[in-house]
């Protein structure tokens, strides 16, 4: 016997709070992302899949992937839109005349050059680490927690912790050595 199919409203009622929580969390980092728009977009995507699933053939795991996929797509699209908006429009109160931007906190060319140099040095130091440590350190520096790193690297937490922290220590000494050489 085919499993009883939830109505779309019921399905959406169950998952909507989690979708909203996810995009709101993202939005807190970037105030220009409109959470309501994102949630609506995700809802439309789920609706399209639900409409195709008239015989209730799709499993819950499929819906799970669809929801996550829709969230990522929407975040990416909005990020692209935002990047254009930031480039095209001046900040509120920002003067159009470049001479009036002397107090602009944006880093100048020297600062940008220094940052680029340090970033390259950091990347070279990461690349010089053993592969597992390099991966753990990269994830750690992207903001992943140790349990998340453990899951991604398919190892236990102790190992993930060791890889990340030993890698960071090696990175620190490598960066200090490089500074000393200059």
């Amino acid at each position, binding site marked *: 016997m085919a499993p009883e199919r939830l109505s779309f409203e019921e399905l959406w009622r169950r998952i909507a709070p989690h979708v909203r*929580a996810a995009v709101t969390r993202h939005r807190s980092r970037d105030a220009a992302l409109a959470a309501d728009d994102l949630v609506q977009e995700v809802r439309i995507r789920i609706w399209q899949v639900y409409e195709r699933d008239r015989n209730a053939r799709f499993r819950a*795991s499929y819906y799970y992937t669809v929801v996550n*996929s829709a969230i990522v797509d929407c975040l990416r699209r909005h990020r692209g839109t935002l990047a254009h908006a930031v480039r095209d429009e001046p900040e509120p109160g920002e003067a159009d005349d470049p001479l009036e931007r002397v107090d602009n906190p944006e880093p100048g060319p020297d600062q940008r050059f220094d940052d680029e140099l*340090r970033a390259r040095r*950091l990347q070279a130091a990461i690349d010089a680490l053993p592969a597992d440590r390099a991966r753990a350190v990269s994830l750690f520096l992207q903001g992943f927690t140790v349990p*998340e790193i453990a899951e991604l690297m398919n190892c236990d937490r102790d190992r993930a912790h060791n890889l990340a922290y030993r890698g960071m220590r090696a990175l620190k000494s490598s960066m200090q050595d490089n500074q000393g050489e200059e």
Partner: protein
Amino acid sequence: MPMNELRGKLMPLHRRATAAPESCPAAERLARLAAGSVWPWQRSRLVRHLGECSDCADDYRTLLAARDGLSAALGLDAGKAPASLASGVATAAALGLVVLAAALVFEPDGHRAAPGFDTHSDADTIFASNFGLTEGDGRPDSAPGDVLFRSDFDGSRGGGS
């Protein structure tokens, strides 16, 4: 310098340097990674990408934040591979084993080992490794003539580290 301080200092640098790489995996790939339903080689590539792309790392963390709630709402166990993939692997492995066994059992009579190649002396033994069952292994019925498969691990259970 404490680890969190070092992390706080290097993280913006790393994230700025890894912003907007040339190509990112499809959203569905990240979704499957969050669902635990990617193949090992795909996982490895995706994880490497997450370390090298701050945008995808952010997106993936968003999925992780929503995972438990979404899984519960859809009636799934969080972080578990969907049954379809797990059972698919098991089915493929079992099928492969059966096909292999059938191919060996129904081997044409004309086939003989080439001169110089050693063959097993037990007429009915198809696979028997050097680490096979030994006497007193608790399986008195396993006379050499009856053995179909004898795994490398059968004779020494519990000895691995």
